[in-house]
């Protein structure tokens, strides 16, 4: 069942177009991440769904209810959309206790007070906040505040829960734990969630589907595996991982194979995106983890001078120069100074 259906949404601030026709769906029990660099419009899209920003074209449906329709000039105000929204800053009301913060949505829905107590207690318990009901928000740690914000958005069972960078206010260490916890919570409660994030690892770990936004349009969407493994554009490829970017010219094109060449080197790769002619400028892209330090020469091998090796804890990162580009590769041990052979698998070098 489709929980959320956005069609051709346009939104602008004055002359500045923020969303330029975005369409997306969210199914029951699905987690969709809105990913993109800052200014791509991902938070604006979330806020437009929530009813906090006013689009000027397109439509938004929550379950089977139309909450925005640009043609019919129909707009349901935020408070009547019955959605749950978790803010980046949590936005807990500082003058209300944790219990009152969570209970507010139920009070507005005229739930009997006995039931309110039951449901708030259940929500707090669900989120591991059992004993904290009488505290004020400022007496909680950052992680606890985040859970209260989630409890507050969940307690009245909204059909869709919207989260705006839910993890970005936590410190790096806590964030990874919270990510796993949040994914587990979403699965356990079978929530349908739309999550905004700018961190591709977070998006891949948490969601069933990723929508990559760029400059107000959807660049590509798909499962995390598709987004990472089969990027259709240079932007997607670049955004979704740690990459080596190699600038060169196409010296030969054979079907989907292309020979990318530069000053004193040439490498075979697979063409992606729009087809190109031989002689054109092109960009090669290869994930760091796909470059391998080899023992000696071989197919699609290249010999490069080592600049330095950096220790990352669980592995080493080696830095080489390839013409005017830099090439980085992971390894398990430091390398001796001098030149080394690197293996670039043909199917791992994407040529755009």
């Amino acid at each position, binding site marked *: 069942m489709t929980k959320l259906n956005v069609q051709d949404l346009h939104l602008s601030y004055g002359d500045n177009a923020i969303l330029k026709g975005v369409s997306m769906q969210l199914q029951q029990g699905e987690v969709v991440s809105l990913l993109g660099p800052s200014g791509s419009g991902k938070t604006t899209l979330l806020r437009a769904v*929530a*009813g*906090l920003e006013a689009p000027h074209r397109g439509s938004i449906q929550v379950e089977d209810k139309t909450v925005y329709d640009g043609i019919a000039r129909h707009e349901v*105000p*935020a*408070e*009547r*959309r*019955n*959605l*749950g*929204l978790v*803010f*980046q*800053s949590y*936005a*807990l*009301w*500082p*003058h209300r206790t944790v219990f009152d913060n969570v209970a*507010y*949505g139920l009070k*507005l*829905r005229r739930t009997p007070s006995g039931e309110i107590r039951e449901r708030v207690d259940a929500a707090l318990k669900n989120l591991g906040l059992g004993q904290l009901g009488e505290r004020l928000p400022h007496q909680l740690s950052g992680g606890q505040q985040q859970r209260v914000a989630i409890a*507050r*958005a969940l307690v*009245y069972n909204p059909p869709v829960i*919207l989260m705006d960078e839910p993890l970005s206010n936590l410190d790096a260490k806590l964030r990874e734990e919270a990510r796993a916890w949040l994914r587990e919570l979403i699965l356990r409660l079978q929530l349908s969630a739309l999550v905004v994030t700018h961190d591709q690892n977070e998006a891949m770990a948490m969601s069933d589907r990723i929508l990559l936004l760029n400059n107000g349009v959807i660049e590509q969407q798909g499962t995390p595996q598709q987004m990472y493994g089969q990027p259709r554009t240079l932007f997607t490829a670049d955004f979704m991982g740690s990459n080596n970017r190699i600038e060169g010219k196409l010296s030969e094109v054979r079907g989907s194979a292309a020979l990318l060449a530069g000053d004193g080197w040439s490498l075979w790769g697979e063409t992606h995106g729009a087809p190109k002619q031989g002689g054109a400028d092109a960009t090669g892209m290869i994930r760091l983890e796909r470059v391998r330090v080899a023992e000696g020469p071989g197919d699609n091998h290249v010999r490069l001078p080592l600049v330095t090796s950096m220790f990352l804890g669980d592995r080493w990162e080696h830095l080489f120069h390839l013409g005017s580009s830099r090439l980085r590769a992971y390894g398990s041990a430091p390398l001796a100074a001098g030149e080394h052979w690197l293996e670039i698998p043909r199917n791992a070098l994407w040529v755009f």
Partner: protein
Amino acid sequence: MRAALPRVGVVTLTALAVFLPLGLIFYQSLLNLPFFMPNKTVGVGAFQFVFADSDFWDSLRNSLVIATAMAVIAVPLGAILAFLMVRTDLPGRRWIEPVLLIPVFVSPMVLAFGYVVATGPVGFYSVWAKQLFGSVPWNVYSLTSIAIIAGLTHVPHVYLYSSSALKSLGSDVEEAARMAGSSPFQVARDVSLPMVMPSLLFSGVLVFFLGFEIFGLALVLGDPEGHLVLATYLYKLTNKLGIPSYHLMAAVAVCIVAMTFPLVMLQRVLLKNAGKYVTVKGKAGRQRPLPLGRWRWVATAIVALWLFLTVVVPLTGITLRAFVTQWGEGVRLSEVWTLHHFREVFNQPTLVRGIVNTVLLGVVGGAVAVMCYTAIGLATHRKNDGWSRFVDYLVLVPRAVPGLLAGLAFLWVFLFFPPLQPLRATIVSLWVAYTVVWLAYGMRLVSSSLLQVGPELEEAARSAGATQSQVSRHVTLPLIRYGLLASWLLVFMIFEREYSTGVYLLGPGTEVIGSLLVSLWSTGGADMVAALSVINVVLVGIGLAIALRFGVKLHD
């Protein structure tokens, strides 16, 4: 977007309260006789009469001279004071801060009386000076003295704006200059002052503008030698022709507004620029004050001299005068002590009613006024549409109308519209006038509280299902309640201090200390004036003490 009904109501009422009196002034200025006369006709006779009067041109010239002198005196002094207080290790900064603001909260009428009884021909300080030097080396009634006193008493206005600009200036820009090798005073000259220049420019225009509003000082100090300014010229017109010369007064009022309104609009533009370099940073307070070294004592002396001239002299003068039977050469203080004046004040029902009314107006009226300001604030809160922009300009309009004119205009409103006449003789008429006169001030207090509420706190309530009015009642108002209490206190002090707005509304039932002072002064009751002034200062002092006790910020 369709505006909600309560919102339309609030905006319409505000617009009525602002434009009705103003419209009446314009209407009256274009009549040849007061509006209640049956044989009035439309024409520009009133303007012709006023423009033919040499007193009008004299008062206009005097107003210009005083306003210019005020800006010239107050801006540099205020800027120096702000730099000393905010950036240096000036001794005693903690207790100087509230004392600095006294001239803002004490009625100019009281300050003016203070100067007369302290430094007039037989004032306390004049007599002491005569004993020292053989003659009095100053004449407090000259135009120069009036301009200097007006300048000195407006230093705090400049101080307020430049100090808050200095405080919000991130310390990093100054530290960067120090690292690049400039000395503390080069930092002030090359970085700090240029960066607060927009604020200084704004406060210069503000002080110049306030110069046109000056009434109490010029009334009290300008009278003996006949120096008129625009506001006192208007006041004197009341009795010039024997009958109420409303049309002439309206013509002068239009002339005054024609000068003040552009200045208010200019201030608005400048204020937008004033924030240009401001970076809100929590770190600003933690920086190390600049050591003054041996300049420390020079700086202290300058501040002490200014405080002595603007606070100590008038306030001690008025206090001494309230407790002595008479004063002059050869009179010994110890022989003339008395409490008689205060007993006299409390024996006169009019004066007692005036005191009660003043307190009521401040406490109850202040609270209701803050509620009105809050309603207006909420009507435009987080809504950036035509209505909000309209209200933005709307609240500025009363700013251009000096209290004396506003009081006159409201008197006319109450006379002109028969259904309103029963309110004329009640304190409600005063309350309406006070609330409209201080609209811009009150709105600034309330909206600065409103701006501190994070938008996401309200959005969170809306997405939880709260309507606009539920958001206001459940989230916004509870969050700003302390801000509103503080605003109430500040509005209380301003209402206690106000004097000119009540002048034309003064009548049985509408006495307040401020307007009683003006009327007692013209009938020559110096004893009563002194005693009432002291009571007025005490009332303001109570407000100030509460504010300091609870750490209410007296300015932003």
